[in-house]
């Protein structure tokens, strides 16, 4: 099912009689989700991800804007009739019911000509359980399951009724690191197998990048960028997106554009095609800084850090926004480091220029997003 969101706005009015600030949890949000896509809704805590999800499923009513499932305008349809499946952040499994009873709960609500026979319900419950691989735990209560198992029950319960779209609100946030990796692969597999259009909320950029067809990056209720994970990473629309994606974080420097060149400190590091003179912020991904004896950017060397296969060269620069400048390199380049300073070459395509005041991307490289 295709989903279109047009100009969606949700304002929570200020509390009480005191004239406080209204909270704009979502401001003029628009996007389209293709049929069968898995969309990652990504942003820091409090940016309005849950709000968007609750607007999609109908638990919240928008202040403004429209929501379409396919061609149907569902904005005024109550949550009961939207036919979406939802996996809640804390799963919301009914604690007094067994796994089987939990999964079949939505099916038993079908009425009229959708009403299912007992055998039909049993069959579809078993199918859903098998899909998420919990068919051996059907008689347990939720409290007797591990976090990952509970999460799979929640997915089965959301999938069993064949929802038009599937919504997941940070479903992995309660799991430990290893289980999280494992379960996100699982979610990807289940989504591929069922082909159900899915919106997956997370504040973890790794998670979003690894399983989404496309990601929507949000900040303070506003959509910053929409695109394929790699595209967004390679071509961030603004400084916020550039900083939010990527681990380790992008290096940022205060710089200036003078006569068609980008300067950081005294070094001229990039050509500035068509960027007007003025203050800028230059972002360089850690893998875009390559140590070279005659590199463009000079920094004070602080040390070398080996973490598994990655080797980080740590340095300092007066114009850097963060205390440390980090470059990730392969082992053979290490030998030539020595002395108090290190110079880096800037890899094209790994460095971006942003306006110092608005944070918007200035260099022309950015793709449409």
């Amino acid at each position, binding site marked *: 099912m295709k989903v279109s969101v047009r100009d969606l706005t949700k304002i929570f009015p200020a509390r009480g009689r005191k004239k406080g600030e209204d909270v704009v949890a979502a401001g003029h949000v628009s996007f389209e989700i293709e049929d069968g896509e898995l969309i990652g809704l990504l942003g820091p805590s409090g940016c309005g991800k849950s709000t968007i999800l609750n607007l999609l499923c109908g638990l919240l009513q928008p202040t403004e804007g429209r929501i379409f499932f396919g061609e149907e305008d569902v904005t005024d349809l109550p949550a009961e009739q939207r036919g*979406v499946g*939802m996996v809640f952040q804390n799963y919301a499994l009914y*604690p*007094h019911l067994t796994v089987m009873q939990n999964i079949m709960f939505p099916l038993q*609500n079908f009425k009229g000509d959708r009403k299912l026979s007992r055998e039909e319900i049993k069959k579809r419950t078993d199918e859903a359980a098998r899909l998420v691989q919990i068919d051996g735990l059907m008689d347990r209560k939720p409290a007797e399951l591990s976090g990952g198992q509970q999460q799979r029950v929640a997915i089965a319960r959301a999938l069993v009724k064949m929802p038009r779209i599937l919504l997941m609100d940070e479903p992995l946030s309660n799991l430990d690191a290893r289980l999280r990796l494992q379960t996100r692969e699982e979610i990807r597999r289940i989504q591929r197998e069922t082909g159900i259009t899915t919106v997956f909320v997370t504040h973890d950029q790794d998670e979003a990048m690894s399983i989404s067809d496309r990601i929507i990056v949000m900040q303070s209720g506003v959509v910053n960028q929409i695109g394929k994970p790699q595209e967004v990473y390679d071509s961030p629309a603004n400084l916020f997106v550039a900083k939010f994606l990527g681990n380790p974080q992008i290096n940022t420097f205060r710089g200036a554009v003078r006569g068609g060149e980008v300067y950081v400190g005294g070094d001229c590091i990039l050509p500035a095609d068509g960027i007007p003179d003025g203050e800028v912020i230059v972002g360089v991904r850690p893998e875009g800084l390559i140590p070279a004896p005659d590199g463009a950017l000079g920094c004070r060397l602080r040390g070398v850090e080996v973490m598994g296969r990655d080797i980080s060269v740590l340095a300092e620069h007066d114009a850097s926004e963060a205390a440390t400048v980090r470059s990730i390199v392969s082992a053979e380049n290490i030998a030539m480091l020595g002395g108090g300073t290190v110079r880096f070459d800037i890899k094209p395509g790994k460095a971006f220029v942003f306006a110092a005041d608005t944070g918007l991307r200035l260099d022309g490289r950015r793709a449409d997003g």
Partner: protein
Amino acid sequence: MGKRSAKGWLYLLPAILFLGFFLVYPLVDVFVYSFEESYNFASQTYAGVGTFNYSYILRDPYFLQAIKNTFILVIITVPVSTGLALVISLALNSIERLRRLFQTVYFLPYVTNTLAVGLVFMILFQRTPYTDGFVNLMLSWFGAGPVDFIDGPYAAKMFVLCLYTVWIVLPFKILILTSALASVSKDYYNAARIDNTPPFRVFRKITLPMISPSIVYLVITGFIGAFKAYSDAVALFGTNLNAAGMNTIVGYVYDMLYGSSGGYPSYASAAAIVLFVIVLTITVINLLVSRKHVHYNS
């Protein structure tokens, strides 16, 4: 026994002594009295040992009347008050505005003195040479004849007693149930909403199981409380309950000890033991039945 556990017992000693003196000893003593024939407080003597006291009270029409009254009271008021409290709590839980106000209003009877409430009920129901009482006035609007609720037919008196009891116990039950309802996470209701669950199914499959521990608590304490009813009857019908035919088991025990026909501790003890056995049996049955149907969050 190690030094540590000796120390532990030492700490427990005051509590054990206190409970022993004021709780265990009287209980055992009552049990003993109930088998001693014609026990006399003053001389500390008795005529013999046996089940005479029991066979006496079980043939005493006043005691049988008291048992009948108590059972009717229990069977009517426990389900009615619990059900009514549930309905009111659900209503309170579903409104947003004025909820605080209504909660306070419903709680007021709980902090009101039983006898004061009894007085109000008297005004509502009692016939005097000057007036038929407020309820009879209302009945007359519908063309029904005056009924003497305080001094009249048994059914009318029972009705007032049950009504009074329900009214007295309602606030506490509403308090317990509203807080139980409020503690059910909204997420379950949201999940049920998204799955298009009909309201009655939500109540039966989610709300009821979630608050079932509170309901069981209320039913058990309700049974125990109603079996021990006494002051309610006094508040409505005065101290001579036997004459009014409205005595309760506890009332009978009291009368046997101190009433105008009192001075029979042996009979009183036997009656108390009978009450104890009844309450114990009912409570055990309650617990056994509820164990199957109650969901305790662990």
